[in-house]
C-alpha cells in the first residue's frame, strides 16, 4: 500500500478525481487498522463484508457520475468511518462496552445516525471501544481491554468514547461517531488530539443507540479536520419525530458558514474561576493560545459551574444506576469492576438529590443563556490535564489531588449540563510534552455555526490541528512528518 490519502479531505478529493477507488481506500484503511490496532485497541468489531458492499456501491456511483455531476455526489461518498459500539448496526450485537450484552440478539436495523451516514455515502468499517455503558472517562475496559492513546500507548485515550478518538489519531479512519453525556466526546478528543463536536442537546436523533443518561445524552462526530467535522455534522442533521428527545425541527447546515468570508467578527471570551482552578499548565496554555488567535481579551464566569458539575454527577449516577437495576440485582459479577460500585451508589441515592439537580438545571440554563447575549463563543480547557498513564488512580491539578477517572470530566460536565454545543479543538502546548490538549469552543444552544467559525479560525492559524505523525504509529514517521507539512499525508 502506498500513497493512499489518510485525511478525510484528501480522501474526498482523490475519490472525486477518480485517482483512487473507494475499495482501494478501504483496503488501505483495513490494512492500517490491522497493522496498528494491536497497540491501540480502538476496534471491538470490524464490519468488513458490509464495508466492501458499501465501498463497491460508492464506486458504482462514482463510475456513473460525469465530471460535472461529481460536485453533486453524496458528501461522504466512499469515506471510511467507524462508530462507538453503542450504535445499533444491523446484524451486529450492540455491546455498549459490556459483557452483559454479548448474549443479546443482533440489531435488526441501523441507528438513525448510521443510516444518515450511509445515505451520505460513507463506508462503515467497524465498531469502537468504550467504557462500559459509557460510565467513565478513560476507556479502561476490563472486558475488551484498555484503549491506548496513539501518541503514547502507555496512556489512556480518554473516554467514554476512547476508541472513537484513538481511531482518528492513529490514522485508522478519518471519521467516527460517539456519544457525550458528561464529556465523552470532548475528553477523548482532548487527550487524543482530534476535532470533536458535541452538538446542542436534542439536535441529533439518539434513536438506535444504547442510552446512558437519557436526560443528558448527546451524539456527535469526531474527525481529523473542521471541514470533516462539518461535512459529517450536516449529514447527521434532521428531525426525527420518533425520538422524543430530538428537538430539532429542521436542519441548520454549518458548511455554508465556513465558506462565507467577511462575516461579523466573533465575540469571544475566556471562562475564568472554576475553569482555571481545575486547569493544569498545559490546559491553561492551550486556552491562552486559542484566546490570542480569537482576540479574546475578556474573562467571564460560568454561572455556578461547581454546582452544575455536582448536579450533572448526581443525575448521571441516579439515572445511570436506575437503568441497570435489574442487572445489578442478578448479574452484578458481570459488570465492569471499575464502574459497578458507582452504579450501585447511584441507584441508592436519595431521590431528593436528583430532583433538586433537575430543578437547578432549569435555573442554571436561564443564567447561562444570558451570557450569550454578550458573547458568541466561550473558551475553556476540555480536560484538566493531558492523558494520564493507564491505571492512574489520581491526578494532581494545581496542588489538589483528585480521583483520576471522574475528574477528567470536571471541565466538560457543567457545559453539557445545560446543553450548549461545543467543539473540542486539538492544541499541542509545549507544556504537554508532545501530548495534546483540547480547548472547548462553547456556543449558545442551536448556534453550532458559531463554534464552527471559531474552529475554522483556529485551524487556519495552524495552532489547532490533528497530528497523525506519531512515531508510535508508523515506523516511517519522518516521511509522514514531511508529508504533513506539505498538507498531504499518506500511509506508508
Amino acid at each position, binding site marked *: 500500500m502506498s500513497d493512499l490519502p489518510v485525511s478525510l479531505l484528501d480522501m474526498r478529493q482523490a475519490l472525486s478525481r477518480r485517482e483512487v477507488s473507494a475499495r482501494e481506500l478501504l483496503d488501505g484503511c483495513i490494512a492500517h487498522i490491522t497493522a496498528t490496532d494491536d497497540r491501540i485497541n480502538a476496534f471491538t468489531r470490524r464490519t468488513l463484508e458490509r464495508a466492501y458492499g458499501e465501498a463497491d456501491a460508492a464506486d458504482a456511483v462514482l463510475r456513473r457520475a460525469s465530471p460535472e455531476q461529481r460536485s453533486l455526489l453524496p458528501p461522504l461518498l466512499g469515506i471510511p468511518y467507524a462508530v462507538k459500539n453503542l450504535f445499533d448496526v444491523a446484524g451486529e450485537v450492540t455491546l455498549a462496552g459490556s459483557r452483559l450484552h454479548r448474549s443479546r440478539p443482533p440489531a435488526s436495523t441501523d441507528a438513525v445516525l448510521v443510516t444518515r451516514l450511509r445515505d451520505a455515502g460513507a463506508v462503515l468499517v467497524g465498531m469502537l471501544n468504550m467504557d462500559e455503558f459509557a460510565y467513565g472517562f478513560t476507556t479502561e475496559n476490563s472486558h475488551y481491554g484498555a484503549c491506548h492513546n496513539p501518541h503514547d500507548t502507555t496512556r489512556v485515550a480518554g473516554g467514554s468514547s476512547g476508541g472513537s478518538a484513538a481511531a482518528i489519531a492513529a490514522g485508522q479512519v478519518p471519521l467516527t461517531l460517539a456519544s457525550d453525556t458528561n464529556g465523552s466526546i470532548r475528553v477523548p478528543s482532548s487527550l487524543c488530539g482530534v476535532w470533536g463536536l458535541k452538538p446542542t442537546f*436534542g439536535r441529533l436523533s439518539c434513536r438506535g443507540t444504547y442510552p446512558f443518561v437519557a436526560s443528558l445524552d448527546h451524539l456527535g462526530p469526531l474527525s481529523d479536520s473542521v471541514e470533516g467535522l462539518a461535512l459529517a455534522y450536516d449529514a447527521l442533521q434532521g428531525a426525527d419525530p420518533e425520538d422524543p428527545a430530538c428537538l430539532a425541527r429542521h436542519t441548520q447546515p454549518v458548511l455554508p458558514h465556513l465558506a462565507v468570508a467577511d462575516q461579523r467578527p466573533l465575540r469571544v471570551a475566556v471562562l475564568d474561576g472554576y475553569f482555571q482552578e481545575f486547569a493544569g499548565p498545559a490546559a491553561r496554555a492551550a486556552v491562552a493560545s486559542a484566546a490570542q488567535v480569537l482576540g479574546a481579551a475578556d474573562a467571564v464566569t460560568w454561572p455556578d459551574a461547581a*454546582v452544575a*458539575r455536582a448536579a450533572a454527577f448526581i443525575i448521571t449516577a441516579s439515572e445511570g444506576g436506575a437503568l441497570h437495576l435489574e442487572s445489578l440485582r442478578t448479574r452484578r459479577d458481570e459488570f465492569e469492576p471499575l464502574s459497578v460500585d458507582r452504579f*450501585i*451508589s447511584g441507584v441508592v441515592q*436519595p431521590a431528593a438529590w436528583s430532583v433538586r439537580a433537575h430543578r437547578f438545571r432549569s435555573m442554571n440554563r436561564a443564567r447561562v443563556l444570558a451570557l450569550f447575549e454578550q458573547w458568541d463563543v466561550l473558551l475553556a480547557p476540555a480536560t484538566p490535564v493531558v492523558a494520564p498513564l493507564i491505571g492512574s488512580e489520581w491526578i494532581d491539578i494545581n496542588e489538589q489531588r483528585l480521583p483520576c477517572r471522574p475528574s477528567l470530566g470536571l471541565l466538560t460536565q457543567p457545559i453539557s449540563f445545560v446543553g450548549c454545543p461545543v467543539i473540542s479543538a486539538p492544541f499541542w502546548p509545549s507544556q504537554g510534552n508532545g501530548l495534546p490538549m483540547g480547548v472547548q469552543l462553547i456556543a449558545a444552544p442551536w448556534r453550532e455555526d458559531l463554534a464552527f467559525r471559531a474552529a475554522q479560525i483556529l485551524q487556519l492559524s495552524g495552532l489547532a490541528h490533528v497530528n497523525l505523525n506519531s512515531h508510535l504509529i508508523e515506523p516511517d514517521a519522518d516521511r509522514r512528518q514531511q508529508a504533513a507539512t506539505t498538507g498531504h499525508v499518506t500511509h506508508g
Partner: protein
Amino acid sequence: MSGAVPPVALAAQDVRDYVARAASVLGISLDDAAITRVAEHFTRTTALARVLETVKLNDDVEAAAVYSPAPFPEPISAPRVDQA
C-alpha cells in the same frame, strides 16, 4: 448564592448502614467488601449533594422533565400557523 443549610457530616458507619439497607430495599445484596466500596462512592456523592444544596431554589423552579436548552429557532421562511 446561598440557601439551604447543608446536612451535618455522616459517620462512616451510618453511610455503610444506609448503603446496605437501601440496596436491600432495591433487591441488591452486598457483602461487606462491596458495601465498603459503594460507601466510598456514596460519600463522594454526598459531598457533591452538599454543594448542590448551597443554591437557593425558589419553590416555583420546576424540574425540566423534557429538557429543552433553548427555543428552537424557526426558519424565517416558515409559514405562521394562521397562514398555513
